[in-house]
C-alpha cells in the first residue's frame, strides 16, 4: 500500500463488453437510471435519433473473458482471439427512434412520474425540442417546444413532487419546464445570462441552485469581457419543493 497518493500506479482496464449501436453515429450521452432505485442497473444510450435502453448484466464480466484474461500470459495468441470473440454484447431492453430523421439527440436524463413512479426519459437534441418518454408504457408522452436552438443538456430537478425539467440550449438560455403540462415556467437568460450557447447545467442535490456553463462569448466584441468568457453561472433556481408547495429562496450570498 503506497504511503502517498503520488506513488500510486495507474491500472489499465480493458473493456468487458463492447458493441456497436446500429446507427454508428456518435453517442453523445450515456445515463444510468438514478431516479428509480429498483431500476438502477438500467442505462440509456442516445445517439442520432435513437435511444436504446440496456440493463447492466449481473455478472461482473461475460463468460470466458476472465479466464481468458488470466490465461493470456502463458497461452498463445489463439486464446486471445478467442477472448476477443467472447467479448459480450448486450441486447437492448427498449429502443426508441424519433420520427424525425434529422434528429440527433444530445442528451438524456432519467426521471420518474410523480403520480405513479413510472420511469421517464427526457431526451433532447438538435431539433430544439425535448421528448418525454414513459418507459413503463413505452410511449412518447410529451414534447416540449420553445427552445430556439439545439438542446445540450437536460436535468430533472431532484426531490420535486411535480416533475420539473431544466434544459440548457444553444439559444443562450436555460428553461424550466413542467413535465405534466409541457409548459415552460421560466427562462434563465437575459441581461447577465450567457452570451453564447449553454452547454451544460447541473442542479445542486438540494435543488437550491443551478449551475450552468457554456461557450459564452467569442472574444470579438467582448474584449473588455474576454476574461468573462467560458464562465459558469450559478443561478438561483426556484426549485425548493415540498408537496407541491413551492418556495423560492432568495440567495443571500450574492
Amino acid at each position, binding site marked *: 500500500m503506497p504511503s*502517498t*497518493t503520488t506513488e500510486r500506479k495507474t491500472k489499465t482496464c480493458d*473493456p468487458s463488453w463492447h458493441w456497436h449501436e446500429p446507427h454508428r453515429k456518435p453517442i*453523445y450521452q450515456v445515463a444510468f437510471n438514478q431516479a428509480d432505485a429498483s431500476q438502477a442497473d438500467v442505462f440509456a444510450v442516445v445517439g442520432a435519433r435513437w435511444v436504446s435502453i440496456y440493463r*447492466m448484466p449481473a455478472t461482473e464480466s461475460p463468460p470466458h473473458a476472465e479466464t*481468458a484474461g488470466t490465461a*493470456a500470459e502463458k497461452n498463445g495468441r489463439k486464446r486471445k482471439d478467442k477472448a476477443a470473440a467472447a467479448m459480450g454484447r448486450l441486447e437492448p431492453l427498449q429502443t426508441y427512434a424519433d420520427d424525425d430523421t434529422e434528429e440527433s439527440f444530445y442528451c438524456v436524463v432519467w426521471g420518474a412520474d410523480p403520480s405513479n413512479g413510472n420511469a421517464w426519459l427526457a431526451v433532447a437534441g438538435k431539433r430544439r425540442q425535448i421528448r418525454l418518454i414513459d418507459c413503463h408504457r413505452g410511449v412518447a408522452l410529451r414534447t416540449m417546444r420553445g427552445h430556439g436552438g439545439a438542446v445540450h443538456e437536460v436535468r430533472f430537478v431532484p426531490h420535486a413532487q411535480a416533475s420539473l425539467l431544466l434544459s440548457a440550449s444553444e439559444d443562450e438560455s436555460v428553461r424550466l419546464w413542467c413535465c405534466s403540462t409541457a409548459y415552460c415556467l421560466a427562462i434563465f437568460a437575459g441581461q447577465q445570462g450567457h452570451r453564447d450557447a449553454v452547454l451544460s447545467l447541473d442542479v445542486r442535490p438540494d435543488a437550491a441552485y443551478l449551475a450552468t456553463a457554456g461557450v459564452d462569448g467569442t472574444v470579438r466584441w467582448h474584449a473588455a469581457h474576454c476574461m468573462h468568457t467560458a464562465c459558469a453561472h450559478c443561478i438561483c433556481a426556484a426549485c425548493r419543493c415540498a408537496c407541491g408547495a*413551492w418556495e423560492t*429562496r432568495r440567495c443571500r*450570498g450574492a
Partner: protein
Amino acid sequence: MRCMQVRVWSLGDEALQRRIAEVAVAAPSVAAAEAAAAAAAEVAATLKEAEEAAAAVADGPEEVEEVEEVEVEVEVEVEVEVEVEVEVDSAPRRTRHSPNPNQVDGDDGASAEPPLPAAPAAPAATPTGRKRAKPRSVPSKGGCGGALEAARVAAQDAKGAAATAARAVHAAEESAARGFAPPARVQLPVATVEGLHFEGIEGVSYYVDCVRWVGQLLLTRGTDERAVLWSPPPLDGQRPSWHPVASSSSPCTPFSAATPGSAGPGSATPGSATSGFASSGRVAAARGSPRSSPASASRPAALPTLLNEWHMPASSLWFLRCSLDPARRLLALGSTQGCVAVCEVDAVRAPPLVRCVARRGGGRKRACSLVTVRHTAFSPNASHLVGGCDDGSVYIWHLGSAVDVDATE
C-alpha cells in the same frame, strides 16, 4: 430561429412561484382532457367493431343473438364515457340533437378566454363549455337490418364524439397556453464565475462543456483539457468545506500552505493552471486551507477557490463530457484517443486510478482504437463504467477491484 425574446416581465421569485402554482392547477385539467379524448376514441373503436359485426350479420341473418350481444357490449363501453365528464373549452364542438344512440349535446359557451397574465393560480382551461356524452342503450331490435342500422349510426356518432374530444383537447391546450402568463424571466444569475478555463494571453476562451455539483462544490471541465474542482462563491453565506485525501507530507497540494498574503498560488501548481486567477488580479485572496474556518461570508466579491484539478491529454474536443459516480467519489474523463481516466475526486495531484482503454479485443497486443469516448457513466455502485463513442460503439469496463482497493486507503 432565435429565441431572443425581448418581453420584459417582472423579475423576482414571486413571479416564478406564481407560474408554478398556475401550472399545478392546470395540470389536472389537461390530463382530464386527454383522458376524455382517449375514452372517446375507445368508444369509437368499439362501435366500429359493432358496425362490422352488424355488417357481418346482415349477410347471414341467423346470428341475431350475436348482434345483440355486441350491442350490449357497446352500451357498457359507453357507460365509461358517461363517467368521464370533461370540462374543456369546447369552441370547435359540433352540437347534435338527432335522436341517436350516442348523443353528444351540450350548452354552447365558446367564448375566447382572455389572457390573464398576472392572475395568480388562473387555471389553464377555464370551463367555458361542457361536453358531455350521454349515451343511451342501443335499441336492440329483432331484425338484423335494424340492428345494423343502429350500429352504424352509433359508430358514426362515436367517431364524431372522438373527433370532438380531440379538438376539445387541442383547444384546451391552446387556451391554456394563451391564458397563461409567459415564462418568468430570470435575468440575473446569483453569481458569475470566470477565469477558470481560459488562456490569458490571447484571451482565447475555452468552452466549458460540463459542470457538475459535488456536494456544495462545483466541478467543471473545459476544452483546455482540464477538469477543475472549485468552491463556488459563498451561496448560503458559508463556504463549503472540503477534505481532500492527501498526505500532509506531500508538497504538492496546491493549497496546503497558501496564506492570503502569499505571492501566488501554491508553488507546485502548474503556472498554466492558475494563471487565470493570477492574471485577472484575483490571486488567491480567498484561498485558505479548506479545513480551516470558512472564509468570511461578508466578503463582497464572489471569488472561486480552486481546490483540485486534473489534466486529461487529448481531450480538447468540444462536448466531451466528464462524469461522476453517484457517490461523487470518482471522476471519469474521456478523450479522443480511446481512453478514459478514472480519477478520485478527493485525491489531490494523484495519477488516475484506472485507465480504461477502448480495446476491441481482449489481448494486450491489440491496438487501442483511437475513438473518441464522448460520454461515460458509472454504474450505481461504481463497479462498471459505460462509455459511448463517436463511432456508435459502447464499451463497458469492469472497474470493480481497482476502485475498491483505493477506497480502503
